């Protein structure tokens, strides 16, 4: 018991490390597909599913994944319909995002459930349980498997979507898999950084990792490493007595610091 008390930080630290690798992997693939908007959309669209699953006594993660994917598919469907009328897709995406977020917030009192919204939105690493470790581990496994089995197809889709379709690649299926993994990633990262701050951990490591890279594989490895340093380091920093800040928001702020670092590296590359 005394030993466990001494290493209380180990479980959240492991979750932080796994989420730190997981988020940039999914974020990198989305970034090179020019579909990073999906993270913002899915991260807000998971809320109604979370609330419904809680009310039904199911795992909130499962509800979140279903709801996140439903939001993404809905947005995609309406975006396609709007494209022929030359209306920007961003308006559709943001409307779906706000609608799902609103629905999630409304469902909490309507279903009479108790949800710590602050923890959902901004994460609470200090409150993670072993199941969070399992879930984030499974999500990491899912993205690694997807990238191992479909690596070249995602490269093709990223560099030339039209050519990929023309070459007979299952473009819609590949995008659906990516949406599913994104939703799983967002739900798994919820415990660490929350659904609002997850975008930082998905986007910023990939931005830095892209510089000078000669392959997507190289970007993925670099981004995962940067993400682990950010997330794990952010957690360890947050729990220091002289810091004592919530880890999720601190990790979000650390992500911001990557931008000047990227600019510095960009200049060095030129």
């Amino acid at each position, binding site marked *: 018991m005394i030993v466990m008390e001494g290493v209380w930080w180990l479980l959240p630290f492991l979750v932080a490390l796994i989420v730190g690798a997981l988020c940039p992997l999914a974020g990198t693939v989305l970034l*090179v597909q*020019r579909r990073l908007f999906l993270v913002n959309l899915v991260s807000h669209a998971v809320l109604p599913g979370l609330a419904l699953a809680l009310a039904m006594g199911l795992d909130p993660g499962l509800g979140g994944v279903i709801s996140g994917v439903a939001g993404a598919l809905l947005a995609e469907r309406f975006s396609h319909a709007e494209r*022929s009328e030359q209306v920007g897709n961003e308006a559709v995406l943001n409307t779906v995002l706000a609608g799902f977020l609103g629905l999630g917030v409304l469902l909490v009192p309507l279903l009479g459930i108790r949800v710590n919204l602050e923890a959902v939105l901004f994460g609470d690493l200090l409150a993670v349980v072993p199941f969070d470790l399992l879930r984030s581990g499974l999500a990491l496994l899912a993205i690694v498997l997807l990238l191992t089995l479909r690596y*070249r*197809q995602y*490269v*093709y889709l*990223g*560099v*030339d*979507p*039209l*050519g*990929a*379709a*023309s*070459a*007979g*690649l299952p473009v819609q299926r590949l995008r659906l898999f990516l949406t599913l993994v994104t939703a799983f990633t967002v739900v798994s990262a919820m415990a660490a950084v929350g659904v609002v701050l997850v975008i930082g951990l998905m986007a910023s490591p990939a931005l830095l990792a*892209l510089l000078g*890279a*000669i*392959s*997507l594989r*190289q*970007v993925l490895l670099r981004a995962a490493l940067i993400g682990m340093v950010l997330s794990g380091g952010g957690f360890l920093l947050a729990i220091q007595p002289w810091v004592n800040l919530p880890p999720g928001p601190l990790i979000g702020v650390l992500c911001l610091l990557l931008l000047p670092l990227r600019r510095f590296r960009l200049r060095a590359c030129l």
Partner: protein
Amino acid sequence: MLRVSKVSVQRGSAPVLDNLSFVLQPGTLTALVGPNGAGKSTLLQVLEGQLPLSAGEIALDGEPLTPRLARQHLALMPQRSEIFWSFPITVGDLVALGRLAGRRSLCCDVEAVLQRVGLAGLAQRRLDQLSGGQQQRALLARTLMQSARVLLLDEPCAAIDPPSRRELLKVMRQLADAGFTLLVSSHDWGRDLDSYDRVLVLDRMLLGDGTPAQVRASLGDLRVGNHCCG
């Protein structure tokens, strides 16, 4: 031989292509010219099996062109604007992607294809480190990697400088001489047109079909409407 017979395509109630008929013979380099919005890209996508016909038929060597047959024998090189040029990839890896088109057994060596388009020794170079003309040739190499015999090139000469354009035209000519059938879309009506064996002038319907000299004679200075540049 690719035969297009009375092909029409509609989007909603608006006709995009109207009653097109022409034949492409093997080993020929054909230009498909017309203003923006004339339906050039649509026609290429129709030939490639990505868009359905409203009327008419397309046949390859007498066989109706199904999407499966199109994937086996035709390859599309998309417009420059469709490509994410900053993608982290080397030239060699980009070209090798052509193998994913489902005809792996027929694929050739990356370095041999790069040599064919004049990019020998650049396989390890990052794609965004190439010039615009070299990038287009790298994309053409990837299209060649698909082992198709009909190459549909969507505005490959757009937004590249004249020397690069000439180099690309030279490569296209060599491919035609080697037996490939090339249909190359362009909205540019410059002197480059003389490099082609044949010119199809499109503005939703076929306005001209013949050698560059014949089309020039029948359509004046090859200007259609007010859209085209000289």
